[in-house]
């Protein structure tokens, strides 16, 4: 099987926002959750995860907080902000329309 194609530009942001919409998580947990929810289809390297998180934070979509985890470690937890939630809704709509349009095109009968 060939390598799964790279994530479509911008979709990583969408995925991250969606994951954080469910609950605040730290970086490592986010990487685990990504693998979990998408199976192995969407492979996000740890390398691209953190810059993406930092960018979303700078944009004001998510906010970060240092908290102590259950096993007494200090970790940076990310959570969705109110503007972030609105942004997510908008982006999800866009994605839905885009995906529908692309699948429509791809399924066109060849004559």
């Amino acid at each position, binding site marked *: 099987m060939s390598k799964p194609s790279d994530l479509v530009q911008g979709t990583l942001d969408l995925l991250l926002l969606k994951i954080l919409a469910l609950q605040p998580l*730290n*970086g*490592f947990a986010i*990487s685990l959750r990504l693998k979990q929810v998408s199976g192995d289809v969407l492979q996000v*390297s*740890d*390398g691209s995860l*953190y*810059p993406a998180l*930092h*960018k979303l*934070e*700078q*944009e*004001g*979509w998510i*906010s970060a907080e*240092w908290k102590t985890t259950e096993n007494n*470690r*200090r*970790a*940076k937890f990310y959570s969705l*902000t*109110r*503007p972030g939630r*609105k942004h997510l809704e908008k982006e999800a709509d866009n994605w839905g329309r885009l995906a529908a349009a692309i699948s429509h095109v791809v399924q066109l009968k060849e004559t």
Partner: protein
Amino acid sequence: MRSERWTYKLPLRIRSIFHRQTADQELDEELRDHLELKTQQYTSEGMTPQEARRAAVLEMGGIENRKEECRDARGIHFLETFAQDIRYGFRMLRKSPAFAAIAIVTLALGIGANTAIFSYVNAWLIKPLPFPQADRLIVLLSHDSKKGWTSNGVTSTADFFDYEKQNSSFEQLVPWTSWYFNLTGDGPPDRVLGGLVGWNFFQTLGAQPLLGRTFLPQESQLAASHVAIISRGLWESRFAADPRIVGRAVTVQGETYTIVGVMPANFQFSLMGTSNMWAPLAMDDKARHDRSTSWFEAFGRLKPGVTQQQAGADLAAIASRLEKLYPQTNTNETTLVSTMLFEIGKNEGTQQVIICFWLVGLVLLIACANVANLMLARASSRAKEFAVRGALGAGRLRLVRQLLTESLLLFTFGGAAGALFGIWGVHWIENAVPDRIRGYIVNYGRGTLDVKTFAFTFGIAILCGVIFGLAPAFGSSGFGANRSLKETAGQISGSRVTRRLRNLFVAGEISLAVVVLVCTVLLVQDFAHMVYGDIGFQSRNLMVTELVLPPAKYQTDAQIRGFYDQVLTGIGALPQVESADASEFTPFSDSNQVRLIHVVGRPPAGPGEALGAEYSAITPGYFHTMQMVLLRGRALEPTDGPDSRKVVVINETLLRQQFPKEDPLGQQLEVGDNHDICTIVGVVRDTKLFNLTDRPMRQIYVPAAQFPSAQMSIVTRSSRPSTEAASVIRTAVWSVDADQPVSAVRTMDDLITERNTPNRILAQLLTFFGLLALLLGAIGIYGVTAQSVQQRVHEIGIRMALGASSYDVTRMILAQGLKLALTGIACGLLAAAAVTRGMAAILSTVKSSDPITYIVVAAFFALVALAACYIPARRGSRVDPIVALRCE
């Protein structure tokens, strides 16, 4: 919504700027945490700790890169890298102090010269007069619509009062005229320059007195007019800053005046010149109705909202009404308006300042081209550094930005040094202005070093920094890592683009320098011709003192004649004195008089076509004492007494203009408003009257015995220049009349020097600018040649190994440099020919296309360029082929 987002974003921005270290630490911690957790996960899946760790790091894909990306995400990249660039720029400048010093000094000279000149442009052309709402101050000029003549002064006294009554544009109209006051009592008699002014003079200007009050309306009535306001300078020098000066009585012209006010030190009415005392301009009813003569000037303050054009139309309408009512006196006479700022600027060499401004602009361009060249040279020797940085991931834009930052840094330093140099320049100019003429110059000859001036300084520094900083950025467009890295040190030839750009800069620089040099040489030459030219009399060992006899004491002509005869006899008998004579007006003094003349027998002059001539009444020996050359006929003789036929001596300009083909001797001139008929008995050479730069003007001399005047200047020729002569002359006057004020006894040479100072300052500045341009041009060509020799050491080595002699090499390098220089010189000469055409109007003795100037400048510049190229050429010819080739 947007604002809510900012509540999240702003603290982060602030943190990343001001708490960069904390942010970095947290990033560090976060990533380490991730790695540990990952390692734990892999270990629990059965890997060895080492393997687990390695896998975790691999998955991250290079910790440092990730960190950089996270930092980028913080988005304050710009500020941070800017700070970094500045730090780096500083380091680079410190590392090459010679380059930094040359560049900064070059820029400081260029920018400093501009700062100094701009401070005068600012003071004279931009900054309004030191009066509130000065743009509403309007000067009235009389205009002869037929001859197109415009002159200061109102058309006539009666006209002025009609304008005052009938106009609807001005809040106030103010009459004024310069005046001398003879101050006696309290100490030695003193002659004080000042003015007679309308009662509303200070009020209209908006000037407040330091002490006391300004004039009252009723004080323009003759009966109440014996009041005076004095300057702070006079208050301090003559009255010892008496705090009870207001109300004190002084004797002026033998009459008692009461001082009612003192004006502050910064009060200046430049149109009047140096003035220290003001009294109301008052006149009787007869004078108020005089419609044929005028003896004062006028200005006014516009009503708010009225434009200069509206006021002009208003006065013109009144003028045409007056023209119909009084055709005898007012035909073709009208009144024009001009702003006071413009009129003051007109008097004071505004043109010269503008020329200087252009020239220093060019000098600055030359300086910038020079610095850009230096930066280009450095950029090509730094090609390798840039290649390395490029290979390490610096983007092209990032490198350009760094070059730009370095250039801006350099230009900012240059600007700061230039500001200091400029301040010094302004002080130099300021101190060079003598006190006597200071009063005529706007702002007392001080430049205006204000925010505007320094904004200008740093504005041009930064503008030039950006423009010329981009040059090396484009020049080193290659940044090609491959090529540059392959080349060995010392062998890096600047890219072709760089070399072309540098040649272009140098050729352009030389062209500009040639333009500046041609302009300055023309102007300085013109100046020198006038200064060392003929002034029409011998000024050495000549001393002048001015006397005005009080009319109350000397009422008859005989009394006046008696006084001057006695004084001249007394002075003439002094051992130090060769001869002494008197003239109503002398050259280079502060006063003069123009009288209308008419050649008897010729058709009467049409309205407004009358001829004027500089007039003076003189004692018989005046031409002898002045050593003026008599061209025809005879001088005035003692026999030309009050009862004999009236006579006049004319000058050669009047001869040339009015008697080009006829013999003037024996013809008759009608002189002045009294229509005296005088027979022409002689012709003398022209003399300069006001400035060495005067153009020829008509002059007439009449015998003082026939045209007595209470105001005369005593001219004394002594055998040697002596200060003691000055005091014996004063004593001689006082031995005749102990109460008679005597002006300071000045040597004619001093008077000429003072009058000539503005021109001398200008000439010195021009010489400096010219030399600066030449020097910068020479440095430019030297730099390019030296750089090219350095780059071609290898090639030269090969040539010499193949048999070229050091003579061949020298010739090759010289030829190359000269080609560049000659191209620049040729372009410069063409540009100069075009530019100097605009200067023709202010050159009076040199033609703007004077071929010798062009040839000399070109030849001189070529020689300088040759010398500048010779140094590197010689170095090139000494290249040892073995050493050069071994470099490889």
